[in-house]
């Protein structure tokens, strides 16, 4: 589905990713873990084109997407949840959601249909639909970002720290939503520090250190040795 091959990327002259390769298999949730500053966010940004690659290729369904402008990736079914808060604070929740349908904005009926589907799924959003997004709580903003991302009917999601700053209860809800997306045939590549909670929902795990993959394995194997993994983790 998505294959990153020998990629170098960074900011200006500073290189962050070194000859990095990994795969996100179709309809899997692929988990990316690693210490702070390892380059996890940089990798997602490089896939989405926010960070320029200087070497290697990024293939999506066999096609190199590394030179496409970022805004065109939506048309290919790729969507991105940033690590930081990314709601449009001065727009209403309804306007935020509608922008998620930008790719097919001319199809009024489909836009309405998607909006209704999101409001059915996320009751908080429905109740506050005409309020400004900036006034919502952290968890509600994350929910809005996820719903907005789903408006475009994506096939592949890049997700950076879905549960950052959320209470355990809301984090659990968010994981369940994301996990449920697999049933809709969506492929997920997800960065998460919170390995204990996310591993159970994952299929495959990559560990990133200093801009390269240091190890990879099936999630079930990691889960079995979670204690050891977390132990070695603490050494970082």
């Amino acid at each position, binding site marked *: 589905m998505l294959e990153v091959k020998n990629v170098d990327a960074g900011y200006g002259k500073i290189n962050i990713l070194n000859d990095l390769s990994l795969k996100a298999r179709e309809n899997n949730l692929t988990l990316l873990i690693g210490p702070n500053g390892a380059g996890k966010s940089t990798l997602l940004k490089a896939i989405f084109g926010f960070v320029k690659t200087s070497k290697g290729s990024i293939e999506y369904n066999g096609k190199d997407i590394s030179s496409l402008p*970022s805004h065109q*990736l939506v048309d290919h079914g790729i*969507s991105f949840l940033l690590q930081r808060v990314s709601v*449009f604070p*001065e*727009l209403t929740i309804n306007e935020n959601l509608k922008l998620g349908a930008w790719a097919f904005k001319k199809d009024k009926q489909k836009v309405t249909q998607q909006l209704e589907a999101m409001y059915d799924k996320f009751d908080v959003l429905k109740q506050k639909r005409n309020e400004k997004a900036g006034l919502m709580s952290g968890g509600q903003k994350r929910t809005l970002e996820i719903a907005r991302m789903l408006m475009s009917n994506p096939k592949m999601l890049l997700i950076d720290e879905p549960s950052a700053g959320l209470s355990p209860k809301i984090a659990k809800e968010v994981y369940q939503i994301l996990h449920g997306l697999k049933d809709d045939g969506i492929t997920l590549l997800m960065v998460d520090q919170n390995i204990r909670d996310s591993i159970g929902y994952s299929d495959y795990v990559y560990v990133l250190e200093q801009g390269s993959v240091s190890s990879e394995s099936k999630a079930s194997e990691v889960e079995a040795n979670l204690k050891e993994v977390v132990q070695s983790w603490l050494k970082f």
Partner: protein
Amino acid sequence: MDFLVPLLAQLTNGLIIGFIYALMALGLTLIFGVLKVINFAHGEFYMLGAYISYIASRMLGLHPIIGIIAAVAVVFIIGMLMEKALLTPIYEDKVERKDEYALLITFGLSIFLMNGALVVFGPYQKSPEPLASGVLDLGVLSVSSGRIYAVVLAIIFMAATLFIINKTWLGTALRALSQDRDASTIMGINAKTLGSIAFGLGAAMAGAAGALLAPVFLVFPIMGVVPAIKSFVIIILGSMGSIKGAIYGSLLLGIVESLGVFFLSPSYRDGYSFLLLIIILLVKPKGLFGGSQWNN
């Protein structure tokens, strides 16, 4: 009570000019909101608008309304092209000091356009066909019909802009872009194209103001300097990037100027705006609408 009628006349004139400045300031605010660029060539788009209406009405013999519409359309296109040609390096990480780059490049554009007009049209003042001649009798006071038409058109242009910004997909995307460029890109919005459109729209609003005021203040190469400075005063006054602020700021400026002219002296007309700015910033350092956003 004898002073009341002339005062009313001054105030009416001040408000009329205020509405037209509001159009120009709104354009400046739109560009700043979306592109985070202070357009130092704004006065020259105003000047271009005036010249285009002059060419259309005097040289081509078209109706003044057509001249104004032509000014809006042509300045929109010129603005878009200028943005594409000059400002794109900012978004491709090609320049290191983006703010300084934008400042210098729009400043350079301003000097270029001013001198271009000087070469093409010469230094002399020209006057386009007014929208209407004669005066409108409003009972106690009479106002030149040309100005009435101008202010009505200015209000129509402003209403159209506000409609676009608040009610259309394009407007929602522009507001989104002004708040979070990366998040907009993730939605599939082409930030570069929309940036050009925003710049074109902003420039076109200055062009419209220039075309509307051209019969009143005449047309010459440096005609845009004072209105541009006033637009800067207005948007600082009304808090950078606030749409409400731009509109109320312009009206306030128009009123204060006419009061100053009436009670103090007409010679300092252009100085009153700065006095107003200084007083307001002393009381409210963030401007009248400090903290509020580009939206609404």
